[in-house]
């Protein structure tokens, strides 16, 4: 059997690809229970009041697009809805890497519904402020000293909604999207409630902050994004991907059971025979 393992390895991959393709060819609606964290996430965004400003650090890398972009698109459109209905203000900024700028720029240009909103009055994109944690600290401490222009190169002194934004105290809440460490945002922005859209792989990382209520709500990868899309009634890419993800999880569980049956039923028993 051990000689066959490389072939089994490839067969596992091949079957995996086959199974995840099924929901795209024959759409199936698998049940999706809504987790309390996603409910809280929506509630926090809904509770923003007139004049509140939310700042979002869009620092994910392009490689994380599949996991974080559906959540970002749904979240930003929901925030823009709050801007339209309640007069909330929305600031988007990138601090991490040039690649994060490509990620944020793609969302900003192609996926946001800004109908009925005025750029610079209701929402603004500040572009890439290099420096990551130093930039985060700078924006929290003295925004006008760090951010000179917006994404289009317009001086922030000429952007109406930026006139009242000087430091962390002027923001009601902050949010971040990250495909790496969540720690810098916690270190520099914990003075105000933080929400996040993060890779499912990094959930363990943010748990100490969630328990201490520094991060007040979060979206966990595609699953969280699909739940959020369902809650806000905007069917997006996460909803389309979640059935395939459920299929993949069923397949993973089946593999775990099969491997354990094989190990305890054959390998272990054979090992005992050899020992005797």
């Amino acid at each position, binding site marked *: 059997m051990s000689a066959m393992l490389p072939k089994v390895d490839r067969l596992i991959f091949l079957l995996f690809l086959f199974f995840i393709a099924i929901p795209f060819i024959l759409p199936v609606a698998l049940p999706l229970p809504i987790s309390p964290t996603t409910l809280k996430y929506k509630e926090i965004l809904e509770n923003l009041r007139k004049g509140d400003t939310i700042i979002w650090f869009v620092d994910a890398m392009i490689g994380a697009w599949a996991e974080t972009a559906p959540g970002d698109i749904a979240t930003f459109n929901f925030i823009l809805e709050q801007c339209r209905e309640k007069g909330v203000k929305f600031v988007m900024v990138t601090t991490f890497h040039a690649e994060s700028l490509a990620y944020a720029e793609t969302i900003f240009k192609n996926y946001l519904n800004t109908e009925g909103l005025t750029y610079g009055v209701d929402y603004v994109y500040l572009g890439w402020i290099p420096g990551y944690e130093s930039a985060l600290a700078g924006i929290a401490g003295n925004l006008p000293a760090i951010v*000179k222009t917006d994404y289009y190169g317009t001086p922030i002194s000429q952007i109406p909604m930026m006139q009242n934004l000087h430091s962390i105290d002027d923001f009601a809440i902050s949010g971040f999207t990250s495909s790496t460490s969540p720690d810098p945002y916690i270190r520099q922005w914990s003075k105000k409630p933080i929400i996040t859209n993060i890779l499912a792989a990094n959930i363990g990382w943010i748990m100490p902050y969630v328990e201490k209520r520094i991060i007040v709500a979060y979206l966990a990868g595609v699953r969280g994004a699909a739940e959020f899309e369902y809650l806000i009634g905007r069917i997006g890419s996460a909803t389309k991907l979640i059935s395939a993800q459920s299929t993949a999880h069923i397949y993973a569980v089946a593999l775990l059971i099969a491997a354990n049956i094989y190990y305890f039923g054959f390998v272990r028993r054979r090992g005992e025979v050899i020992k005797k």
Partner: protein
Amino acid sequence: MIPVEIIEATLILMTWSLLYKDNPLYKLAASMTIGLYLGVTLNYAIDSLNKNIYVPLIVQGKWLSPTTIVFIIGLLLYTRFIKSLWWLSRWPLAILSSIGLSVAVTGALGPQIIAQLSTPPLAGHPLSIINGILGVTATVTSMCYFVYSREHKGVLGALVKIGRIFLMIAFGFMLGTFLMSNIAFAIQNMSILAVPPGAYISAIAAIILIIVTSLPRVKKSKGEEMKK
């Protein structure tokens, strides 16, 4: 014009072809990715330099500003290419690392150190005592696992065994969530490959794969026949 999905599907399959074996198509896709990555990064870096250095210093002529000092410190990084001046490149590095460290340490004190020690998780909850005991036990026993200066026997051996269980649970959780993330990437790609027009490329790739994998067998069987 070729639909974008066709190009995407072709590139995904070129990358996935590594699952069969290393081949020129995979190498081409890998080189294209690196080239594209460098190109995009360079573009944004130049744009940033233009916005933050060129415009304020050259276009607006604000030479007497902190930007000039930052610009000079930045330039010092490149002195490492001049043998007699290479030592100057240490200064910007020292400034960068010291500022980074001070920003991180001052920020860490509140949320990462004091807040984590102040109240136990789930404070006020009936299970908080059990949770607290579990937290302390997991920390102590997991640390015992990494004690190499003593043989893992007796009390230490028992603690190490418990620590190993906690480590296994932690790694299992990490692996599970990591797997969940990676599955999402494959599914995103599959959403392009399984639906037309990407599905046509997938079908062509499947046919090529079947032909390629069956070819060596034909040759082998002919060789065996010759031997016979």
